[in-house]
């Protein structure tokens, strides 16, 4: 049984995340009002946003009487709408995420913890689901005070599942009918390909982002010679003699695979970021995720 994860969000890193927000690129239909200022909609909060000329049918309570007195024109005050954004964090907790060091599963939890912190500070409701042979879900929480519960949830030992990722995503989507932003954190090493997972997650009511994490050993193997490659999940093992030429070929294949995942996400308007677990998370959050449009 694996050990619980600790030190998922250190205070110094947390401080650097305070100015970041979850980015939503399009308006997502929602019936609930929340504490998060909508960047796209105008609503009925107390926060002034803008003026516009009065049109018949507008609520006269929002007329700016002082402007009428000065300008003899009927002008309406507009206020920011406050929306209720739900952030769904999906963490791939399959057996392949054990690869490391640094272990992909730990890195995925840290990414999820950081995204959750950003979302909670932003007033979003944050839920967290671990995808393995079964789904382990923490219901949505709101407020900075909930970060402790969330970290506790993420600290639990890994599921080490062998079920393919796309099956877990399909179960999540069909059971929980998510609305809002869905961030999938995974190595995407699913034989069915990323499209199968995105197909389940992409809806009219969701905006999907993908963060791919790969271990250094996934990208640059440190072994050669007579080997039997054992798939950590359910894939077939491969017996081969690894020569330098063959290892070079594998590196190129991984590179192509990451590029293909990025192209596929781009075509489907899915934000995509990929990095290896030996890179500092700060680089991922302060550069890659902002560039990808997951954060702002």
């Amino acid at each position, binding site marked *: 049984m694996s050990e619980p994860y600790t030190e998922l969000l250190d205070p110094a890193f947390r401080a650097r995340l305070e100015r970041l927000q979850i980015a939503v690129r399009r308006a997502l239909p929602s019936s609930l009002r929340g504490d998060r200022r909508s960047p796209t909609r105008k609503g009925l909060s107390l926060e002034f946003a803008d003026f516009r000329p009065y049109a018949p049918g507008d609520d006269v309570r929002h007329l700016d009487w002082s402007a009428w007195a000065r300008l003899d024109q009927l002008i309406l005050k507009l206020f920011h709408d406050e929306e209720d954004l739900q952030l769904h964090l999906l963490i791939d907790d399959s057996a392949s995420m054990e690869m490391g060091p640094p272990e992909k599963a730990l890195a995925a939890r840290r990414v999820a913890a950081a995204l959750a912190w950003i979302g909670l500070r932003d007033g979003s409701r944050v839920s967290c689901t671990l995808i393995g042979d079964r789904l382990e879900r923490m219901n949505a929480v709101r407020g900075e005070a909930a970060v402790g519960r969330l970290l506790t949830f993420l600290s639990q030992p890994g599921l080490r599942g062998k079920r393919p990722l796309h099956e877990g995503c399909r179960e999540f989507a069909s059971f929980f009918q998510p609305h809002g932003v869905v961030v999938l954190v995974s190595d995407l*090493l699913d034989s069915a390909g990323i499209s199968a997972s995105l197909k389940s997650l992409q809806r009219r009511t969701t905006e999907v982002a993908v963060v791919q994490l790969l271990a250094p050993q996934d990208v640059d193997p440190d072994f050669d010679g007579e080997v039997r490659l054992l798939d950590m999940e359910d894939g077939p093992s*491969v017996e081969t003699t690894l020569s330098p030429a063959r290892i070079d070929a594998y590196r190129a294949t991984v590179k192509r695979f990451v590029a293909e995942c990025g192209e596929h996400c781009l075509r489907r308007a899915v934000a995509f970021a990929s990095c290896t677990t030996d890179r500092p998370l700060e680089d991922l959050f302060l550069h890659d995720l902002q560039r990808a449009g997951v954060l702002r």
Partner: protein
Amino acid sequence: MIALVFDTPWFLAALVAMLPVIAFFLLKRKRRDVPVSSSMLWQRALKETMARTPFRKPSEWLSLLLMLLALAGVVFGSAGLRLGSGGGGRALVLVVDVSASMSLEHEGESRIGIARAKAAEALDALKDGDQVTVIAAGTNPRVLVHATADIAAARRVLDDVQAEPVGCDMRSAMSLAFAEGRDGAEIVVLSDFCHDQDSWADLPDQSATITLVQCGQDQPNVGITYTDVSADDGGVSVLVRVAGDGARTLSLLIGDALTDAREVVCGGEEITVVFNLPNPPEEAGEFQRATLKLEPADDLKLDDTAFISIGRTDPPRILHVGAADPFIMRLEAAVPGLVVNNVSPGSPDIQGRYDLAIVTEQTANIPPARCELYIGCVPPGLPFVDEGEIAQPELADWDSTHPLLRGVGLENLLFARARKLSVPRKAIEIVKFRDGPLLLELRADGRETYTWSCGLNDSNLVLRPAFPVFIRNLLGEAIHRVQGRSMPCSRDLTFSAPGGDAAGEHDFQLRLPDGDERTAHLLAGEAFTQRAPQGLGFYSAAIDGTPSSELGTGLYSLAETSLKAAPPKPPEKSEVEVVSASAWTLERPVWRWCAAVAILALLAELALWLVKNRRI
């Protein structure tokens, strides 16, 4: 049949090392287990790599075969593998010494007879499917029977093998035996081993079993091994070499007359005796027969005759008896060097000696000549009967090989008439009409007589260029024919251009007995050598058109001939296994090839490893 023979066969036990090598390859190779996040990308990468490579992956079995080959090479080489000779499908090579010494007799049986008997015993041991080769080991070894399963034919050839007046080049004979016999052949050498025993020094790298059979015992033998004739300003000499152990009386007979005798004592080496002829032939064209004899016995049963002749110093002389004829005059012009004396038939006794007499009108008075040609008339005193005229005779047949017809074309020859002559006994028809002879040859009483049954004007032969050729052939036969039994001349003939004051180049012509000519330009004092001429006869030489007086015919030469038989000695070579003093087996070592195979296999395995680990 080739058999595998090993020097150290116990080393073959190392072949059991092949078992763990095979087991190692058969067992699945242990690989290191390495967990990976997903084998999906690895499979994709390896598939792409295999699709890109231009070569198929070497099979694991190839590596196993190379390792086994290398191991086999090391083991067989270490065990000293040799290719020897075994049983079944025998290849027998009989090398029979036919040198002169094999004619020596012991208790009524010659050494060559002993060799024939022992060869027959070897043939008796052969079975169906075996093959035999017979080689005569003389000065120039030759194959008498080439690799045949027909044992009866080989017996017939062996029955005719005789000692020859030659030496024995056993080294060449052995080389020939190895060349004729295949790997694993059995070579049986039948000889008195008088020859040089270093014949085994250069045996080829080929497996064989060699058996030496000594034919004849060593005992005091004396024989004439060489005769020669030479002439110089001092006169004519006969040179004789005698070899063996013992004392004899050496006699020289000219014709049947004893001319000279010497006592000779041989102590195992050859001694030389020179006789100076008191009355050598003086006239051009004369020859004498010299016979050498050893008393009480010449153990070498070969003819010891030499022929002595003196070359011509004057041109050939022709006597024409008949009316002046333009064709005879044309003959004078056409054949250079001729002197033709024309006389009428009624002339008084004609004096002088002539090489050729051409008689074109019937006459009873013929001066002596070596050769006579009667054209359109019959020779007097010989039993020729004229049976009448043949009108427009047609040629039926002719002996194209006859020396008179050399270069003479008889096709499209037309004749108006001819005399039908009855053929005397002993006469030979050279050219025939349907109804009688055209040209007859008769030799009797030391004369050569040719009879041409039609006149010169009764055919178109005289109109053709072939006629002078015919006359020249006749002249050649008249001048150069040698009578008596002859032996092949095996020595070189050497002629020297005059030296001293006769500076510059000299034209040399040599006419051989068969009519061929050799020419050369010689400087003063330079020699011309005719190598080992075959066939006895006169060798007429001319220097600057002047016939040379220094020529003659020799007999035979047994160079390096010894009569002393010796026991055979096997060679001292590491590849030879001596079975007995007269039999040994030659085995070809192949360990070097085994080492080469092992090295090549290891290099191939290394290359295979490099391919697997570096290129792909």
